[in-house]
């Protein structure tokens, strides 16, 4: 295994392996992010911060419906002003571990994205992730910014004007043409793309209660059920743009990560897998990915990245 190189560099930031803790999973504080980093993640994403404090939705907020998860947590966060302090502490703890920190954020207006970006940049994260695709973040027309190429590009431009940090734009699968969105944010200056955010929204109804179980009624679908859609989105995006892509969606095993990388992903987001396999999942993914690479004579991720695009 020692001759294998699992590292990847995204926007000049070195990840010792391609596995990135996805936003919204465990990212609530410095101590838990440090734990994830120590358990073998290549990079970690903190929970999304917005312009002001948000309580989030009442429970139930997350459910295991059998083939995946559904969630409507509602972006609870203390607001970016408090967030900067939390991110600074996190960055401090991650630095000696050599694990990069990705700061995710959202806002409700284009201008707001620029303002939050400017504030959050003070914490000195390695990368920014612009969350334009959470089903809970909508523009004045009731659509997430990720649903419209123009809106997605405007947000990207605004953030790139506000800070010099490399910016990842997180896209939604719930669009007619994800390639158009990807091209728009690339042209607007996005340094990378992460995809996909949750699918849906979906709904699970309790047939005894006769009502939706989530307090918010609808929520985003994640987990194994969405993997084929995530892989297709990553494939489409990688065929349309040349910036790096973090492939996210239902990756539970090293083999699933191989699939994402073959679709063109440079790195792979890990979310629901923390539920299915525990926080120790990062070490196991690394072993499974290494085993696959050894068996196939691959020494580096670049040896098979995007091979599915060539066929």
């Amino acid at each position: 295994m020692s001759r294998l190189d699992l590292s990847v560099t995204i926007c000049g930031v070195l990840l010792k392996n391609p596995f990135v803790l996805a936003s919204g999973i465990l990212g609530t504080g410095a101590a838990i992010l440090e734990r994830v980093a120590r358990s073998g993640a290549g990079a970690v994403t903190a929970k999304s911060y917005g312009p002001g404090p948000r309580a989030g939705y009442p429970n139930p907020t997350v459910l295991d419906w059998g083939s995946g998860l559904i969630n409507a947590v509602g972006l609870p966060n203390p607001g970016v002003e408090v967030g900067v302090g939390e991110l600074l502490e996190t960055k401090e703890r991650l630095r000696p571990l050599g694990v990069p920190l990705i700061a995710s954020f959202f806002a409700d207006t284009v201008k707001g994205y620029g303002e939050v970006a400017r504030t959050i940049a003070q914490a000195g994260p390695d990368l920014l992730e612009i969350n334009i695709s959470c089903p809970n973040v909508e523009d004045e027309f009731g659509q997430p910014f990720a649903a419209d190429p123009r809106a997605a590009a405007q947000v990207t431009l605004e953030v790139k004007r506000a800070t010099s940090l490399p910016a990842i734009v997180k896209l939604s699968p719930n669009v007619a043409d994800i390639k158009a969105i990807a091209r728009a944010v690339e042209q607007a200056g996005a340094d990378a793309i992460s995809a996909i955010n949750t699918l849906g929204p979906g709904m699970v109804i309790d047939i005894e209660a006769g009502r939706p179980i989530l307090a918010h009624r609808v929520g985003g679908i994640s987990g194994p059920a969405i993997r084929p859609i995530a892989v297709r989105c990553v494939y489409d995006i990688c065929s349309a743009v040349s910036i790096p892509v973090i492939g996210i969606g239902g990756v539970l095993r090293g083999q699933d990560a191989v699939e994402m990388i073959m679709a063109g992903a440079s790195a792979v987001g890990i979310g629901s897998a923390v539920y299915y396999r525990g926080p120790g999942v990062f070490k196991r993914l690394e072993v499974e990915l290494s085993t696959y690479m050894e068996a196939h004579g691959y020494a580096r991720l670049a040896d098979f990245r995007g091979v599915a695009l060539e066929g």
Partner: protein
Amino acid sequence: MDTPGWRISGGSPLRDRLPRVATVARVIPETSKVTTFVLDAAIKARPGQFLMVWLPGVNEKPFSIVCPDPLTITVANVGNFTAALHRLVPGERLWYRGALGRGFRLSGRDILLVAGGYGAAPLHFLALAARDSGMAVRVALGARAQEDLLFPGRFAGLGCRVWTCTEDGSFGESGLVTDLLQSLADQHRPGSVYACGPQAMLQAVAGICEARGIPYQVSMERYMRCGMGLCGSCAVAGRRVCRDGPVFSRLPPGS
């Protein structure tokens, strides 16, 4: 999904973990503020594990399992959700997910349970299991006042030796349950101590047990959202109370 060597620590794609419905079979008043609900359900659970109890249209919150069969929870009326639970009468329904979390590990022939206030709830299940495996069980119960003292009769009924204290001296000895623990620990040298209660009490329990070299486990209470180890809402010093706990064999440092 059947990859060899997989230890599924979460759910299974073949089986959902959605809320299950249960009917309230019996409602037992415990104190002026606390009521026990016996459900017409039974589950497999370990002492110390908890349920996420859902009332449609109200909320979903964690509760210790007081007994797995028949499934029983004990609820203090402290807010909107618990007030709604208290309005339930036999024949009405509630929903639950679980058993969730990591429970107590039983060890030693002779154990001491230490409960602060409503912390008695999970320890009742532990006392049941300990009695069934033939252990000698001592219980130290503490509360602010007599009306907050939970389960003195239930523990005695299980054959436990029970000591009680209240902060205002209205029942049992006057003082903190950790004072009681100190004297019981020195007198009886329990093989293990199991505690549940407020954070300050658990910290004191940890200190007393560590000073005497007595192994201990504590059950922590925290605000919880997903209950599945994903959202991070209940994280304390990097540990997820819902999934790494609620029972810890050491208090997480810095908690």
